[in-house]
């Protein structure tokens, strides 16, 4: 089935068209074509949020999924994000939740938090 999409790979936001045979038009770069194919077969998003982490300057620690996770796993992933608390010190890249929502992808810290 053909679809019109807005590319979310970069700020340019190309208007993409993908047909039933997965031919993509409208993309300014190869990443756009890859995105469109991914979006119609297995749509994924990088999830960013915060987890409880009571430091001196910040009360929460920002986190992200190390890679995009399936769109339908965003909600179960948020349940896990909301349930976890980590203790400072934290460093960028520290794994906060391994294999979040069974996606095989880790949730990692995106800020250093001092004690």
């Amino acid at each position, binding site marked *: 089935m053909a679809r019109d999409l807005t590319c979310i790979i970069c700020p340019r936001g190309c208007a993409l068209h993908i047909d039933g045979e997965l031919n993509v038009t409208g993309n300014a770069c190869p990443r756009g074509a890859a995105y469109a194919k991914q979006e119609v077969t297995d749509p994924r998003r990088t999830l960013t949020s*915060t*987890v*409880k982490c009571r430091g001196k300057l910040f*009360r*929460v620690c920002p986190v992200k999924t190390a890679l995009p996770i399936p769109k339908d796993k965003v909600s179960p992933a948020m349940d896990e994000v*909301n349930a976890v*608390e980590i203790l400072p010190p934290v460093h960028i890249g520290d794994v906060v939740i391994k294999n979040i929502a069974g996606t095989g992808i880790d949730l990692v810290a995106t800020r250093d938090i001092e004690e």
Partner: protein
Amino acid sequence: MMYAHMEDIIIIGGGAIGAFIARNLSRYQLNVLVLEKENDVGDATSMANSAIVHSGYDPVPGTKKARFNVEGNALFPSVCEELDVEFEQCGSMTLATEEKQLQTLKELEQRGKDNGVVTRLLSRAEVLRLEPNVSPDVKGALLCPTAGIVNPFTLVAHAFENALDNGVKLSLGEEVLAIEKRDGSFVLKTNKGQREAKIVINAAGVKSEEVTKMVEPVDWTVNPRKGEYYVLDHYAPGLVNHVLFPLPSEKGKGVLVTHTTSGNYLVGPSSEWVEDKDDHSTDSETLSNVKAQASLMVPNIPFREQIRVFAGVRATPSTHDFIIEPAKTAPNFILCAGIESPGLVSSPAIGRYVVEELVRPLIPLVPKANYQPCVKKYVRFSALTEEQKEALVEQNPHFGEVICNCEKVTLGEIEDVLSRSLPCLTIKAVKKRTRAGFGKCQGGFCQPKVLLLLAKKLGVSPLEVLYDRAGSNILRKESK
């Protein structure tokens, strides 16, 4: 909750009038309690007005408005000195923009003389020399050198602080719902319980009619008349140097253009009768009219510097004059009703009059030996010299921590207002006392810091901190 205690005097209303009555009463050995329905003093008409210390040329000679305006104006320099309130006697100009208005200016000059106010007629050339940004179409003006501008927030707050320092009690968030006349006392039913006093003073502003009716029927009304304003940021010093008025009309003093004691500019107010005494809404059409009228006097007002719009509600009496007298059926119930403009400038004189002329016959006024007329001086960090700043930060590092970046308000100043006798319970109260959040970003950056300071000081969760009224919490839940 029951209050067994009998007060000598209860003042209903924590606005400017209540403040100066309380302060004047605090000189004497009396038990005085002030009830204010909002969560801060000076939170209604006293907060949302033009903040002008009128000279007194305008009210009809012989009225209470004329008397208390002129007396109040004379008291302002010393009151503001004692209370450490920002006040600037910059003078006002009433502008004639058409030839035929010059005659009216002469009549106003005469009215000023009748009221005992010094004024001077200015030629077009004189006006333009003193106010280069006024429209070249101006024909002349009436200059009133004794007029000025005041910080209305600190005026009310500091007057209450001084009263509290001298023993007056204050209950915030307490609204009077009914009053029962008893033999020699009044019992006030409030949202928090019951209060009792020998004398009650009604200084309830726009609600002064409703409060009086709790005691006796009245043959007058207090009608809410709304005024909408623009506030501009403070980056064009010298746009106007005086308070600029158009010629007054039946609808009041008209749209004025003035600077404020904080160096902002204020343009307004409109004049609209409203139904709801708590209607503080603004609308685009009214504000456009305000803009158009102001531009007749000052054509190049930098409206792009707009940082806020607001509306205040005047307590306009059907009698056209202040109602300051004992109730007809209850001599121990004193009315201060329908105090609209020039109420702010009149407030020190009304406070003195109510106490010395109306309360004195009712109860012995024995002076306190330790009465202190002055509040402890405030630090205004941004106004200090570099040397003073260095010394102060050395002594207390909190004065080196800027909380509000736009207005350069420091942690030390906020901690000071949080530790004074006058309760400072809300984000808006901090804003009114210190100017934190009054700048061009309107608290965008500093409000979270103020909120956390308040939570800590009040010993509550940040979720419980109020912006202003009950229910005005900023935060809804902890996200994590």
